[in-house]
């Protein structure tokens, strides 16, 4: 099975570096599946679940929020603001963040507060969904 090289970097360090069979990601305008020998491609990443199928067929899921994906010469580079493996997500914390965000939305006084709280809620929801 042909593979391609994937690195995932975040401001908190490198999260993944290795050969993968495929990558599925939520982009700004929908899901994207990336297979080996994809053409050179650069695009913005949205907020959602990422599914990585590694070299030996193992499926790994992660919450991936914001950033940039580039595929150059069969080497993919995912630069993500937040990238958390499903098993590392703190469900309790995400649930609390969700409650706080919901509370803030109901009490938001300005448009700025509302967008901030909405973004927080979205992040919490993505985490909860991936955690399952």
């Amino acid at each position, binding site marked *: 099975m042909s593979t391609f090289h994937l690195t995932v*970097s975040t401001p908190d*360090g490198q999260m993944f570096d290795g050969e993968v069979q495929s990558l599925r990601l939520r982009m700004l305008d929908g899901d994207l599946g990336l297979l080996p020998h994809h053409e050179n491609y650069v695009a913005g990443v949205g907020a959602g679940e990422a599914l990585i199928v590694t070299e030996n067929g193992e499926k790994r899921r992660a919450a991936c929020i914001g*950033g940039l994906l580039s595929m150059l*010469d069969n080497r993919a580079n995912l630069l993500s603001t937040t990238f958390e493996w499903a098993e590392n997500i703190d469900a309790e914390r995400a649930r609390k963040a969700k409650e706080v965000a919901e509370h803030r939305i109901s009490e938001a006084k300005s448009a700025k507060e509302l967008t901030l709280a909405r973004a927080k809620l979205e992040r919490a929801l993505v985490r909860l969904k991936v955690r399952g």
Partner: protein
Amino acid sequence: MAGASMKDIKLRIKSVESTMQITKAMELVASSKLRRAKEREERAYPYFSALRDTMDRIEDSTTDFSSPYQVRRTIERQCLIVIAGDRGLAGGYNSNVFRYYEALVREDPIKTCIIPIGKRAYEYFQRRGADIVTDAFVEAAGIMVGDCFELARLITKGYLAGEFDRVSVIYTRFVSLLTQTTDSVQLLPLVDYREEKKEQTEKGIEPLVLYEPSANAVYDTIVPHYISGMIYGAMCESVASELGARRTAMDAASKNASAMIEDLSLRYNRARQGAITQEITEIVAGAEH
């Protein structure tokens, strides 16, 4: 200079000793935190340098490229992000930052608004009645990557809306454990640091890349991330510098304290000896009669 003063000297020695314990502890705390601060910066570096690479590639490979972040406007109002510490006891760390700011403003007196980071910076600008944009980022110690993203979003939005025409950050560069220099970096409009480099590297044929939805759009979404990376880098350097400055200051304070203790012990022993001699003289004088 006898009994009473002996007691006084003993008390002073005790108080200097306890001060020295504190300065020593602070020095140790600063050293271990310093190591962590440097690691934090190193972990984040690959991410942000990869962003910069992508931006460079877009600039080079796209012929009809233009971005509102690169347009130079006449500068009427600038925004300064000033990073200082939360606490004192770090030698000249805080005052150096403020002195740098004063020199900068004196040289180029245009309308300026401030985003202070660090309690000391906030207090300083509040006292001077400066135009403070936001006080949401006052605590320097607790600033995470997420806060830098928020700050970057705030800046880029304000910049696009024309609230300010130039954004710079004043921070302290960590040169070595003993030297830290205050410096400033322009964030917006974007500066091309590669202007000199460009001529040296003979460019080959750039590979064709598909940008979705377009090169310009991708570029403009990266910019806030890149800016937040610059801020985060400056933050990490400043925090490391503060800890370095504190370490040096506390080291000097501990040395001063031990010198003081030495001097005081000498005086104490002299006073003790003087008291004994006097007592003997008195006894001898009494026995002779």
